């Protein structure tokens, strides 16, 4: 008998129409279709979703934690990238 483990899939759930899919967790599954079944049975038991995406974890391209310094730190002192230097006219509620 094969002792090989099923591949890992990342699960993304849209909780209701209009919202984006958010990462919910991961499941093991023998193939794509079963991954969708497993995601449904594992993460939407309490009406958490209206749509599911699954993707094999080894197909995700992720940033390298060792590169954190060059990836993210340069943005930390660029406060001009935040839209905080505008005077908001009275009466504008959503900007």
């Amino acid at each position, binding site marked *: 008998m094969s002792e090989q483990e*099923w591949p890992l899939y990342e699960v993304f759930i849209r909780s209701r129409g209009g919202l984006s899919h958010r990462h919910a967790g991961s*499941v*093991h*599954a*023998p*193939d794509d*279709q*079963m991954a969708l*079944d*497993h995601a*449904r*049975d*594992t993460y939407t*038991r309490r009406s958490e979703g209206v749509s599911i995406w699954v993707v094999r974890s080894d197909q995700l391209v992720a940033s390298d934690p060792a590169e954190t310094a060059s990836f993210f730190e340069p943005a930390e002192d660029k406060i001009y990238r935040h839209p905080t230097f505008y005077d908001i006219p009275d009466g504008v509620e959503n900007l």
Partner: protein
Amino acid sequence: MTPEQALTAYVLRLGDNALVLGQRMVELVAAHPELEEELANANFALDYIGQARMFYAYAAEREGAGRSEDDMAYLRPEHEFRNLLLVEQANGHFGDTIVRQVLFDLYYQSLLQALANCSDARLAEIAARAGKEVRYHLRHAANWLVRLGDGTDESHARVQQSLRDLWRYTGEMFAADELDAIVQASFDGPNLDAIETDWRRALADIIDEATLTMPEEQSMAKGGKQGIHTEQFGYLLAELQNLPRTYPGATW
């Protein structure tokens, strides 16, 4: 038997099918090799037990003899259970379980679909609700059957044998008895001949995709609908009823 009495007995029988299958699946809780499949099985088992509750509660109400849904499940002797022999068959190995689920769910889904259009409003509502659950169970079990059949030589041979072993319990599903006939005639209920035609066609598609072959015709077992069960049913019922019979009226 009046049509009203027949409908009550018919609803009770639907409850028996759901409860016994649910109880069989409960035996597998904490026994699955994969966590995801474990969750799926337990979810499905609870779906069937939930359906049994709805059927039993309605049957008890119709009967009007002061019995509750619990009395129906826990205090009836073996010969009063009218579930199909197929649903009481032991879980066996994973392939046996999957084949049993496909054979039954394929029939059950068509039956519920027909019942959702019957003239008894309450039964139609229960059937419509249960139908949604069963459609997913069927999808999941059929997905597995295709993977096992079209998997390794070992898994292919095993599920082919499961099909052969369980085939003799399929005839009973479509053998209409008095209750089936009355419910069809008086309440616009399911036509079992039509359901059998659909069942064979849909099953042939799944079996084909799974690279399996339809089992050869053989003599069919029957008796479940008359309360004559296979030996293993007694053990299932003993486990199910042990607590309420040992401590009558126990609550938690």
